[in-house]
């Protein structure tokens, strides 16, 4: 399985943007629902795990060169967030897992790579 296939199957992700947003491999992950905390601590290339689904998440993700956004708990993004993600080339996913479960599964994947 390639990089994205492994992440998508392990976290039961649904890719909501087009396939071409999966251009670059993710390099790590950060989980946070306070936007200022993510601004301070997430790195470029990280997958961002969050419960939020509004367009400011994409604005912050774009500023930080985030590698992808995973919305947890089966929540769906607002339409304008989805449009912005596509425009910015940021893969946007939803998962039925919660923040803890999604983080744990990504930790497994990235710690093996490290």
């Amino acid at each position, binding site marked *: 399985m390639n990089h994205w296939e492994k992440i998508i199957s392990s976290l039961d992700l649904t890719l909501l943007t087009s396939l071409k947003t999966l251009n670059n491999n993710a390099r790590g992950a950060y989980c946070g629902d306070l936007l200022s905390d993510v601004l301070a601590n997430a790195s470029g290339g990280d997958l961002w795990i969050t419960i939020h689904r509004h367009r400011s998440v994409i*604005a912050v993700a774009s500023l930080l060169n985030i590698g992808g956004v995973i919305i947890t708990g089966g929540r769906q993004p607002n339409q304008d967030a989805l449009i912005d993600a596509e425009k910015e080339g940021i893969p946007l996913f939803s998962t039925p897992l919660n923040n803890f479960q999604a983080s744990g599964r990504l930790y497994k994947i990235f710690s093996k790579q490290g």
Partner: protein
Amino acid sequence: MNMEFNVRGMDFTRAGEASAKIKKALQLVGMEVSTIRKAVIVAYEAELNIVIHARQGILTLFVHPDRVEIIAEDEGPGIPDIALAMQEGYSTAPPHVREMGFGAGMGLPNIKRCSDHLDIDSRVNSGTRLKATIFNNINGE
């Protein structure tokens, strides 16, 4: 080079647009990656402070070869106690803003951490002026 952006209070549909343009401008002139990261964090936090707390404001970017300056000037309630506002966790943001993940009381501390110089002037019931300077360190940090 300088650029100026109008920012409107409570306009969350456009929140972050000025910061996105600032990022593009800094990339175009070839600023260091670490400088751009710090400058966009300062710009975004300052822009959102205007959106969340003020009626309106202006975000201005000045680019010099050795540094970036960001000035945020707003018409709004002002900050009665700047030292208190600088403490992480202190916030006066309303609940509906906090529900979006803003207003955690980390904005000004984030700005301070990313700035080499920071000046804040505020008058209650009038407005706030913030000036942040970020040096363009060629060697990264």
